[in-house]
């Protein structure tokens, strides 16, 4: 099963490598991992998307908690939560395609954030599946490059991850 895990960790040099090292050393799978400092500069927040049986996910949670730099861990998939991912797509936009790409971008509530004679760069935010659908909806040959942040997640309402 797919799980999305959020964690807070001390903003120490090498903290990220402790987490990624743990996943590779124990053979856990990482679909995506995002990390950035929080409003408290001494803490970073990480979102990890992984897959595994219930037993594996239980071990992942325990092993993450065991890392000395990790302050707290929450498996967002245990309850209501929101997930968002940002994607930038650069497409070949010439002739009739220009109009069509703009239209598709609008349908997906995207924004064209860079324009050149021959290209558009479109910014899209949403659940990963929405970003996938957008890529399927447009002509594959027109895609020049894509970059995705991986999922960020947060609990709904009073589900709060803090120290």
């Amino acid at each position: 099963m797919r799980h999305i895990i959020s964690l807070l960790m001390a903003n120490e040099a090498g903290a990220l490598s402790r987490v990624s090292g743990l996943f590779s050393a124990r053979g856990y799978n990482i679909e995506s991992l995002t990390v950035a400092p929080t409003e408290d500069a001494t803490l970073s927040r990480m979102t990890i998307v992984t897959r595994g049986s219930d037993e594996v996910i239980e071990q992942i949670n325990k092993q993450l908690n065991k890392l000395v730099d990790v302050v707290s861990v929450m498996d967002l998939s245990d309850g209501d939560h929101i997930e968002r991912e940002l994607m930038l797509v650069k497409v070949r936009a010439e002739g009739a395609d220009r109009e069509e790409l703009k239209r598709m971008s609008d349908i997906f509530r995207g924004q064209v954030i860079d324009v050149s004679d021959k290209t558009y760069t479109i910014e899209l935010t949403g659940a990963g599946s929405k970003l996938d659908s957008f890529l399927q909806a447009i002509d594959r040959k027109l895609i020049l490059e894509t970059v995705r942040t991986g999922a960020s997640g947060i609990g709904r309402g009073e589900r709060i991850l803090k120290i």
Partner: protein
Amino acid sequence: MELTGAEITIRCLQEEGVEYVFGYPGGAVLFIYDELFKQEKVKHVLVRHEQAAVHAADGYARSTEKVGVALVTSGPGVTNAVTGIATAYMDSIPMLVISGQVPTSFIGEDAFQEVDAVGITRPCVKHNFLVKDVKDLASTLKKAFYLAKSGRPGPVLVDIPKDVSNHKVEFEYPSTVNIRSYHPQTTGDANLVKQAAQMLLEAKRPMVYAGGGVILSDASKQLTELVRLIDAPCTNTLMGLGGYPASDKQFVGMLGMHGTYEANMGMQNCDVLLAVGARFDDRVIGNVAHFNSVPRKIIHLDIDPASISKRVKVDVPLVGDVGSVLTDLIKVLKSSKQKPDAAAHKDWWKQIDEWRSANSLSYKNSIELIKPQFVIETLHKITRGDAFITSDVGQHQMWAAQYYKFDKPRRWINSGGLGTMGFGLPAAMGVQLAHPGETVACVTGEGSIQMNIQELSTCKQFNLPIKVIALNNRYLGMVRQWQEFFHGNRYSQSYMDALPDFVKLAEAYGHVGILVEKPSDVEGALQEAFARKDELVFLDFRTDSTENVYPMVPGGKGLSEVILAEDL
């Protein structure tokens, strides 16, 4: 007053009451060695290889309740130390390793003797630190000691760049330490403790399986009291030996791959299993599916939540320190009106005794060939079961575990989790320094001893009267045994040709060597060796080269699918 990083390092060690540092100097730690030189409180033991420094610190820690300390230089110093660090990590041994690093301004430039010590050791330490600023040094060392010994213990590495050891700052050793992300749980949940007590009282076939956590928690007293209270058979893992007195009638011996028949059958057939500070290792329960094929309730007490339900699903998880939780459990049991089910237990003990009568550790002694089991039994007799025994890795290790009956904790010092050949002799150095005047013997093989034989020189320099008991079978015996059982007797590279003359070798290092070739000489030789209280004696026992370790549960098999000695 302002002190340099090197002075601060030594002051911190003094503040922590460190008696010995095991180490080896080099460029990156010269300032620290200079400060060591200027004081007498912290004594330095110069080893002959950094791996040995770490094993010695490890042996020191295992035989006491203290943190072992090792000091190595950057680059090859720290890479040599890695095997020792991993050994301590696998067995959860509290240890501080201080490594020198190239100056901060050189880091990342492939400088002379630069390695990423924090990166290399990350997967085999509890935690590690690179100290980039001298003002963080004292607090980092304080944290390192605290992390090493609290919760589930483990090695902690502190990497100190050379310039940091020479920079000055006002010194103050913090009296307390607070790491906001680290709060190991030591006391058990009261409700779960009650639940466990009830389960144990209702058990018809209870069993206690106790491991290294009992030793690390110094909780053999509580374990012994509990086992008697619930009238259960008790088994120890290789790491737990001595945690429950081997001479007690409720003890059924070690379990696992080379465990006794009664311990393994008890484990397989009990209805309530209490696991205490043990981690259901693959060498202990064998095939997990086979183990799970019989229903039983499991109560698991461990300070590390990640040890619980890692390999085997648990019914009652008790997270906490063995000593503290067992004390609570004993209280609840004593205050309960219910008593263990005497009638059911009677049948259970009858069954255990039946398994016991298989006598799975019996062996046929010989008048021509020295049987390794006989050497260990005689060693037990001569030392009155009261020696500190360290071991290397292989058949000799298993025989020592099976035939030296440990009645006290912290007497059996061996590498279980990593299985590091070369551990025995340096570990014995640490033990002997921690316990001057006590009897320390290192049981080894002719293969293992050669992995750190250079330490005979350290033993000479520091007058360590260790007794080296080499069970010399001219084979990498444990490998040979697997080849005999599972690889059609093809002894690929397991024969030890061109062995040194160990007697002369011992003499060359300034020690005493004794060659023993006949069974009738075994006892006399041991007596002579132990009578030489102030000398290191190397006993080269030429043992039966074809002897195997029994019983054996082959890898991947279930606990009841055991191979017993052929002639039984």
